[in-house]
């Protein structure tokens, strides 16, 4: 425990010294974070019987079919079989939300559906129920390529996401790009830095010993560089996701992923 912080600092500082001018969103050798994992952890993800993220997916299936709220409707009551109706949906999120005039992520969409269609109480960010439903819906797109919507209304938000991605933040003065564009494949402490593609969320992270969202992971990174993390659900986190998904376009959805 005591040895960890100095090593982290040294690693991050080394990363800090590197230039970071790789062409974002246009990586030549685009690779999922799974490619950088040990064979054991890849095997854990690949086998549904040994992937603990499957518990979230199965819980999500149960919730999908459970009537909720004042309307007493289930997700299935409107959407039917998720295997058909939700197939490919996660590849196109975040999407433009007409009501708010802003991008909305998958968990946000589920929350909106719950509020307006089911008239049910909101599920808190990162609650097991919201994670499970999101994992179940995203799982219906497993194996499909990430295909961000070419919606002009999203452009300015995506551009803001790119700015956030490239902006140096925190006491360590690092941007996302400092590590995930400029130094991917190299080590930070004992860990290999991946390219930072959100292909497998919600995912089971061994560090968490639980399934969590992309926002939880992004907040981790921000805390790691000693920056003040955006709150769960903050527009900035959704804009970042919007940019990250564009950057990851073409990679396949893995939900539920496993990561160290």
């Amino acid at each position: 425990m005591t040895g960890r912080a100095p090593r982290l600092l040294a690693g991050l500082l080394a990363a800090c010294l590197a230039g970071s001018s790789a062409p974002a969103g246009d990586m030549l050798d685009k690779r999922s974070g799974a490619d950088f994992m040990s064979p054991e952890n890849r095997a854990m993800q690949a086998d549904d019987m040994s992937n603990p993220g499957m518990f979230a997916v199965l819980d999500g299936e149960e919730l999908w079919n459970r009537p909720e709220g004042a309307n007493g409707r289930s997700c299935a009551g409107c959407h039917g079989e998720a295997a058909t109706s939700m197939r490919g949906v996660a590849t196109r999120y975040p999407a433009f939300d007409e009501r708010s005039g802003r991008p909305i992520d998958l968990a946000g969409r589920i929350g909106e559906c719950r509020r307006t269609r089911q008239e049910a109480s909101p599920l808190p960010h990162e609650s097991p129920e919201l994670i499970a439903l999101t994992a179940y819906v995203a799982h219906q797109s497993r194996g499909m390529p990430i295909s961000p919507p070419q919606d002009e209304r999203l452009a300015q938000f995506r551009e803001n996401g790119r700015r956030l991605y490239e902006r140096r933040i925190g006491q360590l003065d690092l941007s996302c790009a400092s590590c995930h564009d400029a130094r991917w494949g190299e080590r930070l402490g004992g860990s290999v830095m991946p390219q930072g593609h959100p292909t497998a969320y919600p995912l089971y992270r061994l560090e968490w010993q639980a399934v969590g969202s992309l926002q939880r992971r992004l907040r981790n990174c921000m805390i790691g560089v000693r920056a003040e993390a955006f709150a769960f659900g903050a527009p900035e986190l959704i804009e970042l996701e919007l940019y990250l998904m564009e950057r990851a376009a073409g990679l396949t959805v893995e939900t539920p992923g496993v990561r160290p």
Partner: protein
Amino acid sequence: MTRALINAPKTARRGEIIEIRAMLAHPMETGFRTGTMGKAIPRDIINRFVCTWNGEEIFSADLFPAIAANPYLAFTAVATDSGTIAFAWTGDDGETRTAETEITVT
């Protein structure tokens, strides 16, 4: 909510050695961690797991906090008769949960 994922063949030949795998949904809280404000988080683990074949115990395990969250157990059994392979696991809370699967032996 889903409490266990069980993987065992549905059919087997008599005398065949089959592999049985179980993954249980459980945080396996070690009792060695502290939460907010430095308060110790009490231990909460599955401490015992038993597998029976038509009522006869064929495998059991005593588990400790060093077993990873969502315990994963794989073991083998000789297929003897058709019937029920049952699983029971007990937590520190004293509660026992169960799951079972059917097998046809020819």
